[in-house]
């Protein structure tokens, strides 16, 4: 997790330094992630409906927690799938 985040780390020889991702919710200054906002939530699931890990989405811990809560609520009332196919 920390590997693709740290910037002070010496650059691995020959390796491309991955661009540091920023939390999409912090950028938009969102304080509460709504479970009804399925278009936004859908971007943080893969095509099978699984929640993307933080190392892929780049979210901060606070928003990732809120996001997973929101996705799970959306699943409970059939707005989002538990599994696809």
């Amino acid at each position, binding site marked *: 997790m920390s590997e693709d985040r740290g910037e002070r780390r010496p650059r691995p020889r020959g390796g491309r330094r991955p661009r540091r991702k920023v939390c999409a*919710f912090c950028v*938009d*200054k*969102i*304080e*509460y*992630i*709504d*479970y*009804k*906002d399925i278009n*936004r939530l859908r971007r943080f699931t893969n095509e099978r409906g699984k929640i993307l890990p933080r190392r892929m989405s780049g979210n901060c811990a606070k928003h990732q927690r809120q996001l997973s809560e929101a996705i799970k*609520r959306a*699943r*409970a*009332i*059939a*707005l*989002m*799938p*538990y*599994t696809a196919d």
Partner: protein
Amino acid sequence: MNRYEMIYIIDTGLEEAARKELIEKVSALISANGGEIEKVDETWGKRRLAYAIDYKTEGWYVLVTFKAPAELPRELERNLQINENVLRYLVVKLVEKRSSVKPRPVRPVAAEEAPAEEAPVEEAAPVEEAAPAQDAE
């Protein structure tokens, strides 16, 4: 009193009159137990479900926001559980924070004296227009 938001799914096999009656009944249940309905939103209407519930692929979504004492959601959920025309329900406590959907109408006490349905719409528009105008001057 807390603010809650409830979303529930009604079986689409139910005809319109019966559906209206059910929505009415749920609203009455909230009011009867010391709750105070702020808004009943039926604009979601018929939606495809993300997965089949009891072999049904569609449902009629109803969104209700209300103020209620803390004991009410439990009673409400008990009643929705019994009703077989309600496929799913979810009661959530509202958080007064900047939402990803839209800013929640956090109205001052004075606004509640005005007719409940009209007030938020009319209030929102002039405020937004006024703000940029002041900046321009």
